[in-house]
């Protein structure tokens, strides 16, 4: 495995090096223009686009071409809307045939309310897509064993959720994400629920390799300013992680040491 996690080097996913650890979603923006400006301000090098929003019959699709215009950005089509493995695989295949490349953010979310990922169907789809040569980045619940199973299936990352998509609730799955980070041999991207730059910084301080943000930027009063704020939050969190955060202490340090009598 070329990637060694936890080091201080750049982020590498499937042999591609990323200078930014902030990935962006493209839904919910008030216009394509607003999205483009936010992408530029975020410094992101990986941007995900819902295939359901793309007219794959139209080579000039506005959403797709506007993302593809950014030379340094890895396009990451996603299978949002798929309710089982079959639908996700079909979407990924047609996207590749239509020239969207072979990277795919695998989303199998049968529940349209909370958009929570189906672990069984996600694993099934990942196994098929990896065999077919896709670079698969699966969106999952923060389930450490599922993360390992996906890694064994050959996915390029795992993308555990902090809290449900669009909820802005931050990292409610902290304990399990810590285990995933500890156990994972592939980059861990905290995806979904990050509502503020401090949430993103927290994920990075925990040792996540990257974060993916959409709602908090797209629905901000000033998406460009917010994209910049997330960029800074991610960089600060990563710097803190690389600097080596002192461990928090559970007990106060007694002014009269309990073992003072030993001196």
């Amino acid at each position, binding site marked *: 495995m070329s990637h060694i996690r936890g080091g201080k080097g750049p982020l590498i996913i499937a042999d591609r090096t990323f200078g930014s650890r902030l990935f962006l979603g493209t*839904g*919910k*923006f*008030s*216009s*394509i223009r607003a999205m483009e400006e936010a992408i530029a301000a975020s410094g992101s090098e990986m941007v995900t686009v*819902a*295939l*359901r*929003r*793309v*007219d*794959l019959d139209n080579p000039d699709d506005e959403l797709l071409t506007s993302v593809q215009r950014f030379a340094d950005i890895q396009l990451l089509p996603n299978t949002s*809307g*798929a*309710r089982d493995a079959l*639908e996700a695989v*079909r*979407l990924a295949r*047609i996207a590749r045939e239509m020239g969207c490349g072979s990277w795919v953010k695998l989303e199998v979310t*049968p*529940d*349209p*309310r909370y958009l929570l990922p189906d672990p069984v169907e996600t694993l099934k789809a990942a196994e098929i897509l990896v065999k077919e040569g896709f670079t698969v980045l699966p969106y999952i619940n923060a389930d450490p064993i599922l993360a390992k199973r996906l890694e064994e299936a050959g996915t390029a990352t795992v993308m555990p959720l902090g809290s449900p998509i*669009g909820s*802005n609730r931050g990292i409610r799955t902290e304990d399990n994400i810590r285990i995933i980070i500890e156990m994972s041999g592939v980059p861990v991207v905290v995806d979904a629920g990050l509502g503020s730059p401090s949430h993103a910084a927290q994920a990075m301080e925990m040792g996540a390799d990257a974060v993916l943000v959409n*709602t908090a930027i*797209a*629905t901000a009063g000033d998406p460009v300013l917010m994209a910049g704020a997330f960029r800074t939050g991610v960089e600060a969190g990563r710097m803190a992680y690389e600097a080596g955060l002192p461990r928090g202490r559970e007990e106060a340090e007694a002014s009269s040491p309990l073992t003072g009598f030993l001196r």
Partner: protein
Amino acid sequence: MFRDIFTTYDPGEVRDRIYGAGEAEVIRAISAESPDPAAICALFSPAADPLLEMMARRSAAITRQRFGSVVQLYAPLYISNECTNRCVYCGFNTDNPIRRATLSEDQVVREAMILHEAGFRHILLLTGEDRRAVPVDEVAGIARRLRDTFASLSVEVYPMETEEYGTLAAAGIDGLTLYQETYDTDTYRRVHLGGKKTDFFWRLDGPDRGGIAGFRRIGIGALLGLSDWRVDGFYTALHGLYLAGAYWRSQVQVSFPRLRDAPGGFTAPVPVSDRDLVHLICAVRIILPDAHLSLSTREPEGLRDDILPLGITSMSAGSKTDPGGYSGLEAGDGQFEICDRRSPAEVAAMIRRRGFDPVWKDWDRMLR
């Protein structure tokens, strides 16, 4: 089935709860995470009327967080205006001496291609309620002709059996719309004078049958103006909550059709004002944060534009309600009067001016 829940609520008690709610209950309900039946009553109550601005703010904020600044566009396509029902408010009433027409499959495809050319990728196929004029297999055949051209195909047709809905789903239909018209059984009886539609519970069970058949979107709604909108609003919200739980893989959609002038000369017995309409939309959004809320061209342009940011996520544009209307066939008469006569491009431009992204495609043929 929803009827099992519906029948546990005594309409008199529901009305009393709605009209007896106080301001404090409304304020609690507006900020409640998941409103209970008492909170739902409060949101539709007269006590909520003076708090409409607070409701609108909450509704707009929920919508923005959940859906972002986007509005999905769709177009209705009428296959037929033939109908066996006698609904006193509807232009298609079998007693009305209108020009009747049922399009051939080729004519439907021609209509669809005109909509495709205008930019639409989501279309809603409609018929009157006459299964001999447009049999289930005919709807399925049309769907098979259109499924590769459109991202999403929905139907608003006569209620069908579960297996028949299954046939449509297999043919590429992914959404079902079926309005109960009113949840008030007395009013329902008074306005539905003949035909299969007189069977209140056959219709009430329809969205359940659609959910069982696996449609990805299930649309419901009450025809506003037939009965007390507050009470119908309560039951619509209850119905939506039930469907979202029972068919958790399907998205609920709620529409707010207000009665318009139609052939037959019927006028709404209980008119719903613009303010009432806004109240209803905001209440439903607070109760159903994840539902698609739709506002059609039945409403006039200025009002549609103003209501849009409050919670609407889906709009029709450039609609014709007569079969063959897009191709200018003039084969049959329309169901009701269109109020917003702007072209799809003009509606899209308005959406942009309001700070929203008009989205023509938000589904995919691979997802069915």
